[in-house]
């Protein structure tokens, strides 16, 4: 007769194996999971913010400590701009980051127009946002006249 203990062990192992199989299915095998991705968000559910993460990281060496900056998107998207305000605060420590949008609502220019640097996620703005310091596939960095 099979003991209750054996049932418990077998059920735990079988269930655990199923769960590991499902977990393994979430690993991006086709993209070689051992290769370090460009950003920690490349293959997560929040992959839409990966380009902003990469741009802010690439722009960091060009923005000095104590500088004031603002990050926005082209075309303008207050929800994404809310995220990039938060990303800029995390990825650009030592700088003052002003919000172009907050909790999904666009902020009036008085809030952010004293920023000396502008990080533009997405395409290049139709009108130059100042002096271009960096342009990548993810966006551009501008020295602004506050």
């Amino acid at each position: 007769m099979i003991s209750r203990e054996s049932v418990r062990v077998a059920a735990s192992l079988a269930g655990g194996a199923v769960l590991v199989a499902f977990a393994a299915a979430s690993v991006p095998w086709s993209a070689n999971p051992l290769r370090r991705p460009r950003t920690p968000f490349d293959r997560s559910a929040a992959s839409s913010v990966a380009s902003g993460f990469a741009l802010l990281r690439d722009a960091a060496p060009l923005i000095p400590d104590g500088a004031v900056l603002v990050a926005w998107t082209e075309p303008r998207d207050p929800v994404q701009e809310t995220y990039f305000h938060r990303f800029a605060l995390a990825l650009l420590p030592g700088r003052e980051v002003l919000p172009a949008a907050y909790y999904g609502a666009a902020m009036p220019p008085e809030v952010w127009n004293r920023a000396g640097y502008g990080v533009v996620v997405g395409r290049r703005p139709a009108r130059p946002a100042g002096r271009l310091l960096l342009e990548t596939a993810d966006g551009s960095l501008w020295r602004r006249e506050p």
Partner: protein
Amino acid sequence: MTGAAWLLSLSLAAVCGWPLLSHRSLRGLPLSSRLVLSGAAGAVLLSAAMTCAVVLGLRWSIAVLVPVAAAMAAALRPFARGEAPSPPPGRDAFGGGTWTAAAHALAALAVAVAFLATWSGAATSPDLIFFWGAKAQQFAAARTIDVPFLQNVFHRYMHLYYPPFVTNVYAFATMAAGRFPWTAATLTFPLLLGALAVGLPGILRTRVERRAAAALSALAIAAIACAGIDADVAGNAEMPLLLLEAMAVALLVSPHARQPSTQLVAGILLAGVITAKVEGLPFALATAALFLLLRADARPIGAASARLLLPAVACLGTWFLFGATRHLFTGYAGEGKFLDLYPGRLAAVVRSIGTALAATGYGLPWLVPLAVVLASGRPRRVSLIPLGTAAALTAFFLFTYLHRAENPALWISWSAARIFMPVAMLLVVATACGAPPSPSPETTVPTQEAPSQR
């Protein structure tokens, strides 16, 4: 290299906790479990020392914090009374036959999968960037909890009242490494999952035979890996919280929990639970209350309550004292007034939670442990500790979701899977309670340590 240094510095927490975990009365647990418990308890003491330093207006220094936390652990030794219960036959949690080896292999595979998903950028939590890491980085640079940073009106989304355990520990590692490495921080998910895989079997082994302890531990690790990857928890507070919760509950259902020393260690872990996330408060209160109610062998109740709850009261009290003295907060902020609920939304909230859990590995991280609980026969009295805690936690989440004036469906869709992860773990621990304890805890083993060192 910075990332490696950041992760390695976390091992200093084990140094902080060891003066307590090396106590003779805890030697009934295998070394693997005591090392992990030492790291977990040491991290709690380290965080407590950091919060105390902030309240006193002292700047953080690693050279001071580590000895202070270790001294706190040493100062707790006199409260850790009791003899070491005799270990079950074949005490080493990692020995054993084919079934045990298969279980450990399965747990290792789950940890490896969690690592690959995290390393490849498939499990990163946005909350790491939004506030856990951002705050820790700022606090490390300021060598304290930076009040002007928290007061900035455009930083309010960082939840200034959130308890300090995770940001303190991350700030400690950042001070050690020199900067905050974002990828390394995400690796805390597989790293702490691995720590749980090492530490949990030895504690469950005190209740069930070795192969069952290994199998149940593997099931818990697999459930957390599966849900954690799908819910993108890498780098946020979920995994530190789960490690503390799992070890605390496993200790409290163990036959060793009649000992003051085990209760004290569980109390320190519950202090970590309470100071890791807001939902740690109902978790710890429910676990402690159910333990005191259901474990007639853990008496006197006053002393047991003190060992279980005083560390948490001290840690959370220090945090609220900080908030009050800096005019930042006096409690946890919620959505509206405490009892302003929208009960008419209950059905919609339950439906949204079900949808969110079903979208996470088809709900299997919860359904599989539930099936194993049901297959394990009639629950024993002690299993009501994890089951009751799971019920209390579920009630708290429903209460929280019913607080919001707007439709909470979107909020539930991105939060439910990760905050319900402890329920899966609790179901597994409840399964370990379904059999009579395997050791004979009344018998003691002689030790060579002098009584003065107890």
